[in-house]
């Protein structure tokens, strides 16, 4: 049934972004086992007292869970430096969530539905867990733990093969072909003087060929794509040492990103490379490379490739130019976001689209195609991706709900603003409480 006015719960002062609630409180408020009716949610001031009573019981819980995590983290016994910064993890919520994740992951056959439910509330920040969970959520690892080593070996060798086939330049290819044919190349110093032997070749096979099946011509055509990939990789996350700078580590990571994107472009001639794919690949590669398990980290490139392919399979239509105006293209997705907003908050929708005439394409295009990586800082976007990847409705639907939540959370400022200020606000979305936002997005689920 159509709702004319704003739903009651939106009226709560909680949703004004000008004063975001402090993070610790929010984790308590979001505890799923305690769901008070939202309109009656008490204002923020009583909650600090709630925190002071809470820590006492969990303290005995924490040491065992810490050791549990240490034991079960791929059995390497590395000490995770970032595991429990006292401030952030002092809440009941966080600890129990960690324990839940670890418990789920340690099973022989992992229940994906259960894992999704836990993961959608956020994963602990130590990279080992997240790396493993994302691989499971993206279908790279099967839920059955015993199949992991064989599957991983197969996939990784497949990637190695891709690299060998696709990343060679035509010179090396022709050399390999000649070697296999047993061709003799004239050796300069040894043979007797005289004319060098000539061999006739077909027109396709020379460097200046313009033929469509020519190895060389395709190589030069690909060079344009490669240059584009190179430029974009250099620009990825310039503020992070992992990705940019002159260190050998950064260079190695950039090369890995380039390889993955190049192989993807070559294997998908319909979509090739589009600017923005580097932003989607970056978090995946980062998580896998920072896996405390050295064995996994060494194969981060191959794992990231397959997970990137999997993630892109849902979103590739956004990048295909021909599909822009079709039912599956980006324009339609943006329209759906618009309709979603209209459904949940008609007043805001009307103000944005009719009164101030902001075409949602101006802000939503980047939100949707880059999966919100550019709107928030790196760590926050990892949290958002936890929810995105784990939601059973699928990443596309979840993304739209989160975008809608983003709009609703700044509704006060949007309603008060005109075209310029609103556009500025939406294109530079203010820093906000992510768990808060994800909670609102969850509430927007259509029943």
């Amino acid at each position, binding site marked *: 049934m159509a709702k004319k006015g704003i739903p009651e719960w939106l009226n709560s002062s909680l949703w004004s972004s000008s004063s975001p609630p402090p993070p610790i409180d929010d984790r308590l408020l979001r505890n799923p086992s305690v769901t008070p009716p939202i309109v009656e949610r008490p204002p923020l001031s009583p909650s600090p007292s709630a925190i002071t009573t809470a820590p006492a019981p969990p303290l005995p819980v924490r040491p065992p869970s810490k050791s549990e995590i240490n034991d079960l983290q791929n059995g390497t016994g590395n000490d995770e430096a970032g595991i429990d910064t006292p401030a952030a993890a002092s809440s009941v919520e966080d600890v129990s969530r960690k324990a839940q994740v670890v418990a789920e992951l340690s099973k022989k056959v992992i229940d994906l539905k259960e894992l999704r439910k836990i993961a959608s509330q956020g994963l602990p920040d130590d990279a080992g867990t997240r790396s493993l969970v994302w691989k499971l959520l993206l279908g790279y690892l099967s839920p059955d733990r015993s199949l992991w080593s064989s599957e991983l070996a197969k996939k990784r060798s497949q990637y190695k093969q891709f690299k060998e086939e696709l990343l060679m330049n035509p*010179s*090396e290819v022709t050399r390999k072909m000649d070697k296999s044919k047993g061709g003799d190349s*004239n050796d300069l110093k040894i043979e007797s003087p005289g*004319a060098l032997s000539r061999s*006739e070749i077909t027109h396709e*096979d*020379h460097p200046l060929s313009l033929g469509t099946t020519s190895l060389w011509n395709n190589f030069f055509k690909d060079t344009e794509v490669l240059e584009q990939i190179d430029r974009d990789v250099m620009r990825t996350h310039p503020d992070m040492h992992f990705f940019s700078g002159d260190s050998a580590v950064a260079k190695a990571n950039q090369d890995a990103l380039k390889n993955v994107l190049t192989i993807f472009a070559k294997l998908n001639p319909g979509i090739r490379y589009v600017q923005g794919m580097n932003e989607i690949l970056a978090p995946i590669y980062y998580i896998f490379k920072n896996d405390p398990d050295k064995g996994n980290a060494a194969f981060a490139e191959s794992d990231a490739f397959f997970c990137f392919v999997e993630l892109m399979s849902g979103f590739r239509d956004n990048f295909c130019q021909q599909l822009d105006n079709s039912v599956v293209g980006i324009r339609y997705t943006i329209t759906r976001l618009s309709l979603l907003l209209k459904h949940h908050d008609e007043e805001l929708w009307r103000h944005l689209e009719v009164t101030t005439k902001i075409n949602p394409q101006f802000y939503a295009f980047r939100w949707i195609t880059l999966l919100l990586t550019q709107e928030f800082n790196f760590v926050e976007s990892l949290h958002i991706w936890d929810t995105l990847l784990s939601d059973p409705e699928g990443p596309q639907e979840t993304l739209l709900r989160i975008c809608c939540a983003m709009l609703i959370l700044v509704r006060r400022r949007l309603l008060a603003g005109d075209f310029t200020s609103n556009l500025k606000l939406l294109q530079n979305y203010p820093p906000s409480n992510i768990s808060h936002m994800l909670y609102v997005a969850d509430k927007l689920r259509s029943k």
Partner: protein
Amino acid sequence: MVLVLALGDLHVPHRAADLPPKFKSMLVPGKIQHIICTGNLCIKEIHDYLKTICPDLHIVRGEFDEDARYPENKTLTIGQFKLGLCHGHQVIPWGDLDSLAMLQRQLGVDILVTGHTHQFTAYKHEGGVVINPGSATGAYSSINQDVNPSFVLMDIDGFRAVVYVYELIDGEVKVDKIEFKKPPTSNSAP
């Protein structure tokens, strides 16, 4: 994988108007890393045209070149090969293998590229390889009136070189391939 274009003896505008259109359509910028030219372009316009195909242009003086500042000989190193460049009218008898071999030893190079005869040849002897790319426009020479336009593209990859010979025969572009390797124990002068 370095692509080196070797050509020369164009004799524009005196003996030929321009490169054949089929050759021009193949020579697009962006693919070739170096151009070595045996000389006799003869005018600046051709020099500029070659520069658009590749900014790294090496050229030596032919007897009809209008720019007197080109050197008589040139040597350069690409990959593991030393290349030598000379127009060839200085070497008498013209096109004689032994005399060219003498020049090659003098320059101390593995591959000597010369022109002047307007005839494609590729010879090897103990000292190395001598390549003549012929005339890219098919201009007549003092010894030969019926010349097929030709040029050479070398793909140099470390110790291995593949030479692609492009000839325009009866209006069709024919491509041949010649390969040779340089043994890793190099005894050429540093």
